[in-house]
């Protein structure tokens, strides 16, 4: 009997071993090293000098523009995605008949699993001089510039992350007990009122999950501003690529990265409170 439980323990250990090693060496250790670097100094040749100083953090204002852009475009992009995604999720969950539902849902998710690089590239093409602007010229509207503008970045964001927003909202609307809406209608409640008093509040967890997912991914975005923002709109991600791969200031880059992680952690914990308070949620984040 004792041997049996020991054998089981041993087996569990073996089964979890590789995963544990991976989590420790590819997740925990790297984050710890970055945290240590962020308190270090940069040597004149560009390397890292061990030390314990907050200099790198005090230097953060030199990249203020990147933080400002990220912290304004990320919420804006999240909101825009939410506004576009909600009616679609509502339609898919409540209006579409069962036969088409699955196909339509899959068609929303599929683009998310294909290359963001290629999908963003498509917009360079569409928004560039020979794309939509030339079509506009054809119908008489001239001099429209779309690429390398804030508008282009927002379009890219919505395009890239819409599927991620639709899915959790769809799930929370799908779970909604339709009898509630029928009861409201029987009691003489107008459709608009039952939407605002029943449907909308009950789909809150889905909206919260979608917003959190999109917001977090946007905080680390690099490609969309790099391709569509043309150097005018740059995010923390673009600053990080510059600091780590071009100007090679790793200690300062580490401080920027750690600050980014902290902003994300705060977001997630705010979300947890919100979603936990509403009881459901959480697992919806997983596709």
């Amino acid at each position, binding site marked *: 009997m004792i041997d049996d439980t020991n054998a*089981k323990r041993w*087996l*569990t250990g073996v*089964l*979890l071993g*590789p*995963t544990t090693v*991976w*989590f420790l060496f*590819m*997740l925990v*250790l*790297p*984050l710890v*090293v*970055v945290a240590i*670097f962020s308190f270090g100094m940069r040597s004149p040749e560009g390397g*890292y000098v061990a030390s314990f100083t907050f200099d790198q953090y005090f230097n953060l204002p030199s990249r203020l523009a990147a933080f400002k852009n990220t912290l304004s475009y990320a919420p804006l992009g999240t909101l825009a995605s939410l506004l*576009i995604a909600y*009616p*679609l999720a509502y*339609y*898919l969950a409540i*209006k579409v008949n069962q036969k088409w539902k699955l196909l339509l849902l*899959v*068609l929303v998710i*599929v683009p998310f*699993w*294909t*290359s963001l*690089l*290629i*999908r963003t*590239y*498509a*917009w*360079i*093409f*569409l928004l*560039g001089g*020979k794309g939509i602007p030339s079509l506009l010229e054809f119908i008489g509207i001239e001099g429209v510039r779309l690429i390398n503008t804030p508008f282009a970045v927002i379009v890219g964001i919505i*395009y890239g992350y819409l*599927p991620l927003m639709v899915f959790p909202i769809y799930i929370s609307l799908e779970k909604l007990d339709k009898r509630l809406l029928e009861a409201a209608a029987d009691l003489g409640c107008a459709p608009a009122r039952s939407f605002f008093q029943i449907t909308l509040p009950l789909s809150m967890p889905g909206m919260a999950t979608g917003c959190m997912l999109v917001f*977090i*991914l946007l905080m*680390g975005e*690099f490609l969309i501003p790099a*391709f569509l923002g043309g150097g005018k709109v740059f995010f923390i991600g673009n600053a990080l*690529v510059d600091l*780590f791969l071009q100007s090679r200031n*790793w200690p300062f*880059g*580490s401080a920027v*990265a750690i600050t*980014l*992680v902290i902003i*994300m952690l705060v977001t*997630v914990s705010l979300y947890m409170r919100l979603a936990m308070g509403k009881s459901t949620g959480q697992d919806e*984040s*997983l596709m």
Partner: protein
Amino acid sequence: MTMRLYTFAVYLFLYVPIGIIVLFSFNSGRHASDFQGLSVKWYGKALSNPFMMDALTTSLIIAFSAALLSSIMGTMAALALQRIRGPLKPLFDGMIYVSIMIPGIVIGIATLVALVTVFDFLNPILASVWPEGANPPKLSLGYMSVIAAHTLFTMSLVILLVRARIAGMDRSLIEAAQDLYATPWQTFRLITLPQIFPAILAGFLLSFTFSFDDFIISFFVAGTNSTLPIYVFSSIRRGITPEVNAIGTMVLAVSLILLVTAQILLRKNTGKSSAAAE
């Protein structure tokens, strides 16, 4: 009616850009944006470009290795996690969620900094203990670092998929097998594995897709190697050519085929009889 139009418009928004890329990849003209006629010459050009073929090979090797590692390690972990209790379980769950949620750029940076630091520490030691005359190995960023970094995310993905499958599994078969004195290994091989296999395969395909499409992690940790997305990124930086459209179309096609297969596998596995029959 308005809802229907709206939905239609959103689907157009989602698919027109992809369609444009595909259409222009068949453009016979020399410029990316003037459509002149149908031709597959840019595909020929792309496939005979040695840099692009090198990058493609690198991407395929990395994606296959990451997917294989993830499916094996992820399945092992999912099997173990269904039986452990106590403080270890929430700790693992936390790690799984963090590794899925954390943006690629953070993983890329952290892996880059950590690996370079570890290599800088190990390389002189290796050189000093290496026998005189022989060239000591020099650890550096490359295939291995990209595979390891991708596997962090994809392994967690496999754990979630397989765990969901285990949760929906028919327990009575396992109990019946045990009643009939099957050894744990026999029970696993004949009962559990066939039931969870579609989920493992779907996990493999999704992992492959993720790794094959990833740009940002590879950008940081690939060292001097180019994966296909890195190659495409630098081509786009140099200017848009029809060749990029052809490569893009091929990349989209690869992910689409893998995705559809994964979807079919995940659907199929909801029917118990079909899963047991495999």
